[in-house]
């Protein structure tokens, strides 16, 4: 076969002697497909959230083994982010060496929460302990903070209570009509015409007590398992989380589909 035979066939789908340096037979240019680059791009996009979900899922799968439920996160940053810190200012009163504090709906005896119905008004020092007064209830507590008895609408002169103070060494409560003074056993109340100086809670200054109450206000921290679950579920993305995960799911499905197609083509070409 001569050179002319090989070069003369211009209709052939390949040509010879494209270069003076080398004599290479080139296949015709094929249309460049985008499947592989798209596959790579989707792989990169999906990788981070998938790794995130897989790792957090792995941890959650063994939450009991890792004891995640027993670990509570009490970092101020996390508690604040979960909305588990009290709002507004704390008000407090020190009686018999114990502090009675009210902060955003929770009443504390020292650092222990007390079950008190209604809005706290004040606390009064009494001979055998103290009276913690809300607008609908009076709690009689001893020096250890144990509840001796609870006075509600059946035992109070009338509710709502508005103010409280000490009159002649006895508990005095003001309702809408007048001041009422309790007897020694807090059984009977008698109305008085005198005005009693009300005792009020005072703003609590910043300090160790305030910091301690801040972390106790919620009743505990956030369990680590709950925190990891929120990370896993993407709750940190808010309402956007569902759409983001939809996107990741679609990317992953597309990734699988393009992977199968690319593998099929590769096999077909040998």
């Amino acid at each position, binding site marked *: 076969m001569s050179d002319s035979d090989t070069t003369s066939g211009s209709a052939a789908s390949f040509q010879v002697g494209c270069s003076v340096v080398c004599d290479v037979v080139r296949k015709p240019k094929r249309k460049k497909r985008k499947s592989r680059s798209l596959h790579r791009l989707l792989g990169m996009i999906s990788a981070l959230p998938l790794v995130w979900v897989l790792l957090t899922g792995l941890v959650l799968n063994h939450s009991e083994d890792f004891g995640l439920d027993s670990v509570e996160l009490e970092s101020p940053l996390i508690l604040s*982010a*979960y*909305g*588990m810190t009290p709002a507004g200012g704390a008000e407090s009163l020190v009686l018999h060496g114990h502090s009675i504090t009210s902060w955003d709906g929770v009443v504390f005896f020292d650092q222990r929460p007390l*079950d008190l119905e209604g809005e706290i008004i004040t606390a009064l020092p009494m001979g055998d302990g103290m009276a913690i007064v809300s607008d609908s209830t009076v709690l*009689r507590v*001893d020096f250890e903070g*144990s*509840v*001796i*008895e*609870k*006075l*509600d*609408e*059946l*035992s109070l002169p009338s509710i709502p209570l508005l103010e409280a103070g000490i009159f002649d060494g006895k508990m005095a409560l003001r309702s809408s009509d007048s001041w009422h003074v309790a007897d020694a*056993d807090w*059984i009977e109340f008698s109305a008085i015409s005198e005005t009693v100086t009300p005792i009020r809670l005072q703003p609590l200054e910043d300090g160790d007590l305030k910091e301690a109450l801040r972390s106790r206000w*919620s*009743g*505990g921290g*956030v*369990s680590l398992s*709950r925190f990891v679950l*929120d990370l896993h579920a*993407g*709750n*940190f*993305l*808010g*309402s*956007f*989380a569902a759409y983001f995960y939809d996107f990741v799911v679609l990317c992953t499905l597309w990734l699988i589909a393009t992977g199968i197609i690319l593998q099929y083509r590769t096999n077909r070409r040998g």
Partner: protein
Amino acid sequence: MIFKSSFITPVRSFFGRAAFFVLAITFLGSFVSAAEKVYEKPSTFMTRHFGAIPQTQVITLSGTQSKQLKSILGHKYATKKIRYWQANGKAAWILEEKGKSEPITTGIIVKDGKISELKVLVYRESHGWEVTRPFFTKQFVGSSLDGKVLNKKVDGIVGATLSVRALKKLAAVALYLSQETGK
């Protein structure tokens, strides 16, 4: 700055939502579940039975009585003194016991060592409100104390197990305290 705000907003949103569930389900859950419903004011309950509210009386729990209440309730009673009202041979007790997480305020009338009425006055739990219904509370009428439990069987309610248990305990407490104050 744009990056910062767009990042922080969803983070806050997440923690806000998470906080809602944590607060609602776990501890603090009390805010959501505390849908207090007053079925009858204690003063109305008392007036209905006595015409007017009788003189308030107080029992200060002795060591033995506290132990007995503990064995009935499974824990110490919330207060050291308990108020009650007595007239016309009847004693009225307004007692509280937690169902699941909130106290159930219950009015109990005891006459001749037997319960003549038990009524849930204030119910605060989010579930188990069926115990407030007369078809359930009527079961207590005529019950007396057999040791530290009621002598009559009280049928439970599916989904209100803890509230049913709490009311049974309160009924036993009222009967026991009536025995003690009647001595």
